[in-house]
């Protein structure tokens, strides 16, 4: 990722469009603070994690400095110098490894931190044993100041307090045992020392928790702001389109629908339907409101007319059942309209004829939309693709507890019946 970005900066620089030094600087700056171009750094939450990871590594470096300081002052007092420096080397190497993993991931890695804690829990008594003196001050035990600072990583890695507390107690137990048994520290000294671990990890946990929640809040508010700006832009665009549609198209449609330019009442009714739809659109009414079944089917039939299918739509019963239409659930309307459209598409594609009859039949118990063609028909048992096609119709109907029956035989057309039971009030 970094390589690509740098080479891009280098390319920009080599084109001579800007100062080469500036280009490189900008790229580096992006790398440290996090830029939108880097997917890991796109959110504040990710940046918070990166900051926490760097903080943990920083404290680790400070811990290692404490060891260096202690060793510089007390090296002469170590009863077993060689193994002691061996331990210091091991601690430093483990710390480098852990820091590398953490920095590379740009966030604290729970698994790495657990292993690190286990290492620390084991290293504390080893250090105590190696440095165990009779009469020196406690700082000879260099693992204490190191682990006290390094344990802050625990607090910032884990989001659950009980995990932090559990791991802290392991370290506390390791320290207290070695301090009391090996260094024979008095309790008045080791008890407050032990408490310092708990204070460090808990405070680190609380600070990290606060930072994380602030990060999330910042992300949420930024997302909301972006969404809002987006909405606003869309709304402006919609309003502009609405004005144009209203002034140029809707008025023409409505004039045509209500005048006597067309002798065909069906065409006028269709124009009126389209005009009503367009008016709803430009006035900002939600268009996906439960549409009227008659309108929905008319739209489907008109759509097929445009692709060259001539459809007789026998809808008198449906037309007269205004009460039923007003109470029909939108899901049923959509399912019936879509399945009808699917059936008509099949006629257009496969029947070999260009005419079909759609009829809406209402009985006391059910509403039936039938689609009939007098085309070539098919044998549903042998024609596999048609089975797939009919499945999409049956499945659509099944979603609204409806039933689709498909009846066809070679040479005798295809009859599709879409039936939905009516809920009796």
């Amino acid at each position, binding site marked *: 990722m970094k390589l690509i970005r740098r080479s891009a900066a280098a390319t920009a620089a080599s084109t001579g469009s800007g100062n080469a030094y500036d280009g490189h600087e900008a790229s580096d700056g992006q790398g440290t603070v996090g830029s939108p171009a880097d997917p890991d750094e796109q959110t504040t939450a990710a940046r918070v994690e990166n900051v926490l990871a760097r903080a943990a590594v920083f404290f680790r470096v400070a811990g290692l400095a404490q060891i260096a300081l202690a060793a510089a002052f007390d090296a002469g007092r170590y009863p077993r110098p060689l193994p002691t420096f061996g331990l210091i080397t091991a601690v430093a190497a483990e710390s480098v490894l852990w820091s590398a993993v953490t920095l590379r991931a740009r966030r604290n890695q729970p698994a790495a931190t657990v292993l690190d804690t286990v290492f620390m829990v084991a290293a504390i008594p080893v250090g105590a044993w190696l440095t165990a003196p009779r009469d020196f001050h406690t700082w000879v035990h260099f693992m204490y100041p190191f682990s006290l600072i390094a344990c802050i990583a625990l607090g910032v890695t884990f989001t659950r307090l009980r995990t932090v507390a559990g791991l802290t107690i392991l370290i506390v137990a390791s320290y207290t045992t070695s301090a009391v048994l090996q260094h024979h520290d008095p309790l008045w000294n080791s008890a407050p020392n032990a408490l310092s671990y708990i204070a460090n990890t808990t405070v680190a946990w609380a600070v990290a928790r606060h930072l994380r929640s602030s990060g999330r809040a910042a992300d949420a508010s930024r997302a909301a702001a972006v969404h809002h700006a987006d909405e606003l832009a869309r709304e402006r665009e919609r309003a502009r389109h609405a004005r144009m549609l209203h002034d140029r198209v809707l008025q023409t449609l409505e004039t045509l629908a209500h005048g006597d330019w067309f*002798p*065909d*009442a*069906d065409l006028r009714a269709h124009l009126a339907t389209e005009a009503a739809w367009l008016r709803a659109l430009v006035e900002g009414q939600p268009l996906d409101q439960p549409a009227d079944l008659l309108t929905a089917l008319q739209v489907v039939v008109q759509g097929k007319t445009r692709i060259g299918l*001539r459809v*007789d739509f*026998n*809808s*008198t*019963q449906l*037309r*007269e059942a205004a009460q039923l239409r007003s109470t029909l659930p939108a899901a049923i309307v959509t399912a019936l309209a879509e399945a009808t459209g699917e059936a008509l598409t099949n006629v257009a594609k496969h029947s070999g004829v260009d*005419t*079909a*009859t759609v*009829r809406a*039949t209402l009985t006391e118990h059910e509403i039936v939309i*039938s689609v*009939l063609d*007098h085309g070539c028909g098919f044998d549903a048992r042998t024609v596999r693709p048609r089975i797939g096609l009919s499945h999409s119709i049956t499945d659509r109907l099944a979603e609204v507890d409806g039933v689709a029956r498909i009846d066809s035989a070679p040479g*005798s*057309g295809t*009859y599709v019946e879409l039936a939905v039971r009516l809920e009796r009030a």
Partner: protein
Amino acid sequence: MAPLGDSRIPEEPEMIRVAIVDDHPIARRGIEQVLAEAPALRVVASAESPAALAAELSGAEPGGYPDVMVLDLYHDGEEPCLEAVSQLSAGTRVLVMSASGRPADVLGAIRCGAAGYVTKQTSPEMIVSAVETVAAGGFYLSSQLADILQAELTRQQAPPARQARGGDLSPREEETLSLIARGFTHSQVATRMKVSKATVDTYVERIRAKLQVGNKAELTRAALEYLSDESVS
């Protein structure tokens, strides 16, 4: 407009003579075109109104009188020309045509004696088939007409008082109507209902009879009045 092609009548006596009444000149020309292409049909007259048609036919010899009249349901206005349907049905067979009729008006036309109903969107083959059926004395029950009739009759069956007018269909007739409205041919209806095609034809005729029952006397009287009016004028 003068009667068309009178000189050909003796040569082709089997031809079905058709007259067209439609106030819309372009629509009229369109129907003429469709019918002219059918070898068994001949358009003998074409006029903008029933009165104009009567005037046109007044000079025609008896053999020139049309077997079928294709009549537009609405002439210059919103009102269906039911009276003309009644009067013309007495003397010839009337096939009603309209771009889209109000169901009640279509039912009215059938009650007044029309032998069929087609919309202006009906395919040319269907129009020719309708004219042939009507010319042979049959009732052309298009899917659109079946759809309208079923809706109208079911609605009218609700108040019992209306049943006297012949609206009550038997379940088999109702089923026939429903299947034809879905687009099935008479043969397909027969297969579905597990009866012969002749039985289906009978059901269709019964439906027609129930719709037009009690109308014969009225029709005859109206036709007589109409003809006497025409002969006076």
